[in-house]
């Protein structure tokens, strides 16, 4: 069994056909993690015993037969931002290094109800703040395609784990590109759903009006199957969307004939690596053969998106991260001399540099006298960005663009220059500000590093984005390419 090649849909079938058991499969993934993850560092916690116990339970269900839940017996990895009862949930921070979640995130509850198997919790940028997975208390995660390069972030561990064949799929979260950018850097399919489609309950908060859970998989079909399991209204999340459940696989096999794809002029600039531009040109030719037409569109507020994001996200982060005070859970400094000292030293000792930087920016932007110039101004720009998309979608079904301006950069290349790091997210951030669904899928290689392209849709058009990605993947094999690992 070549587990590193297996997709969710193949595993579903193989478990039902009894080609292998969930326990055998789970053991094989755990062995592969043990053999290879030391050089990649994609997991913070591996939950081997729990995984084997869950696999045995799933095997018992499979043996009984009957109607099985879709993901029954399938091993998965979870970003260490989702609370998992009884298992450390660190958010890659020293602040939560000692935190064992007392409850499950809704996403985890849903996956437990499916009898899927959790292999462990994956590495990430601390509190999801970063684009390279270098901001982790547990050390940087490496890109399995080339260990000198970053896997992207913040869901870098999830992407690296799937690319390395440690798990067939993983959960992630995306606040400014944190699913799509690592998916692009690691040659995977990553879906960020419409804001409110996946419950945020039990997902450690970074910027609440932007945060959205999603999936990182080997292909679009798997992303649709996985999304079916985790999406849906949740009364425990006040911004969860109240709408009927839908089957995200329903359009996969439909032809793309007649679809109009928008190409935003602002996303095809000189700053895009020439090989990425070429890969996207090739992808357009593939799609054209499938019957789509292209139309130029404008997203004229694009150049304001990063500026607005770096006010809105840090402002919300500074409010959300006030809860870490050393009183109720998380890190507390040794021998505090008074309450003020306890708050300040606990936070100063346990937050990493990037987290502190964003808390400072957010605190400043929200402080008396600056609110209108910063937060309110950024929210107005946010509306303009949303309106740009609405205008563009009046003349196209969805948008095609690069996911990133360059392939995965080198570890350490941008750590000294936060602004250069922030600019990495230029093509992904607007989507979060507008609350839209978007998907990254592989469309080429530059040397040994994958190239991703992004499909952006109207609110709640996940099924159509998955259809387009699936149809593209029927005609190409970029999504089947895998890195070779050395011990």
């Amino acid at each position: 069994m070549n587990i590193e090649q297996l997709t969710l849909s193949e595993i579903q079938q193989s478990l039902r056909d009894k080609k292998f058991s969930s326990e055998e499969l789970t053991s094989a993934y755990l062995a592969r993690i043990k053999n290879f993850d030391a050089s990649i560092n994609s997991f913070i916690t591996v939950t081997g015993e729990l995984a084997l116990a869950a696999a045995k339970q799933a095997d018992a269900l499979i043996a009984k037969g009957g109607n099985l839940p879709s993901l029954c017996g399938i091993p998965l990895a979870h970003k260490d931002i989702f609370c998992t009862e009884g298992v450390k949930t660190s958010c890659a921070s020293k602040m939560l290094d000692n935190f064992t979640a007392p409850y499950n995130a809704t996403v985890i509850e849903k996956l437990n109800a499916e009898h899927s198997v959790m292999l462990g919790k994956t590495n990430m940028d601390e509190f999801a703040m970063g684009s390279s997975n270098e901001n982790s208390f547990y050390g940087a995660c490496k890109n399995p395609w080339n260990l000198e390069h970053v896997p992207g972030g913040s869901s870098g561990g999830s992407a690296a784990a799937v690319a390395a064949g440690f798990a067939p799929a993983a959960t992630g979260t995306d606040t400014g590109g944190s699913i799509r950018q690592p998916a692009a850097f690691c040659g995977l399919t990553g879906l960020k759903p419409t804001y409110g489609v996946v419950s945020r309950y039990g997902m450690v908060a970074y910027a609440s009006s932007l945060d959205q859970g999603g999936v990182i998989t080997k292909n679009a079909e798997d992303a649709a199957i996985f999304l079916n399991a985790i999406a849906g209204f949740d009364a425990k999340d006040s911004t969860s969307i109240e709408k009927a459940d839908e089957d995200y696989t329903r359009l996969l096999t439909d032809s793309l004939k007649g679809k109009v794809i928008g190409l935003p002029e602002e996303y095809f600039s000189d700053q895009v690596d020439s090989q990425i531009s070429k890969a996207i040109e090739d992808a357009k030719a593939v799609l054209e053969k499938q019957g789509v037409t292209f139309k130029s569109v404008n997203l004229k507020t694009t150049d304001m998106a990063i500026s607005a994001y770096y006010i809105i996200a840090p402002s919300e982060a500074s409010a959300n991260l006030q809860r870490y005070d050393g009183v109720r859970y998380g890190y507390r400094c040794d021998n505090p001399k008074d309450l003020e000292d306890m708050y300040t030293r606990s936070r100063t000792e346990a937050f990493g540099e990037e987290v502190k930087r964003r808390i400072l920016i957010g605190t400043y932007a929200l402080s008396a006298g600056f609110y209108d110039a910063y937060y309110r101004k950024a929210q107005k720009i946010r509306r303009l960005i949303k309106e740009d998309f609405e205008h563009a979608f009046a003349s196209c079904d969805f948008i095609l663009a690069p996911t990133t301006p360059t392939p995965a950069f080198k570890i350490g290349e941008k750590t000294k220059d936060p602004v250069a790091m922030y600019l990495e997210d230029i093509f992904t951030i607007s989507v979060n500000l507008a609350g839209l669904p978007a998907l990254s899928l592989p469309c080429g290689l530059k040397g040994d590093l994958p190239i991703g392209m992004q499909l952006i849709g109207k609110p709640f058009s996940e099924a159509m984005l998955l259809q387009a990605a699936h149809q593209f993947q029927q005609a190409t094999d970029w999504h089947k390419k895998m890195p070779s690992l050395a011990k």
Partner: protein
Amino acid sequence: MSVQIDEIRKVAKLAKLSIDESQVADVCDGFNQILTLVDKMQQCDTNNIKPLANPHDAKQRLRVDEVTATNERDKLMQVAPETENGLFLVPKVID
């Protein structure tokens, strides 16, 4: 806009963070670089534009005011750094 070292100290105090004196100048520089990035917003004409807080312009969903949560005090307090008789312990606040 750019800030001076004194302002950085004030913001850090508000955020309950302390900055080592040897690093405060670097933190201030980095902070100002980010302010330059975000100040680009001022070039954008946003007259008569309503701020957007929720991407769907959604209003807060309300629910019926009835008890739903179960009492899980002991379970939730297990992760606290220091507790006594169902209370969180902190350094003495009042003499």
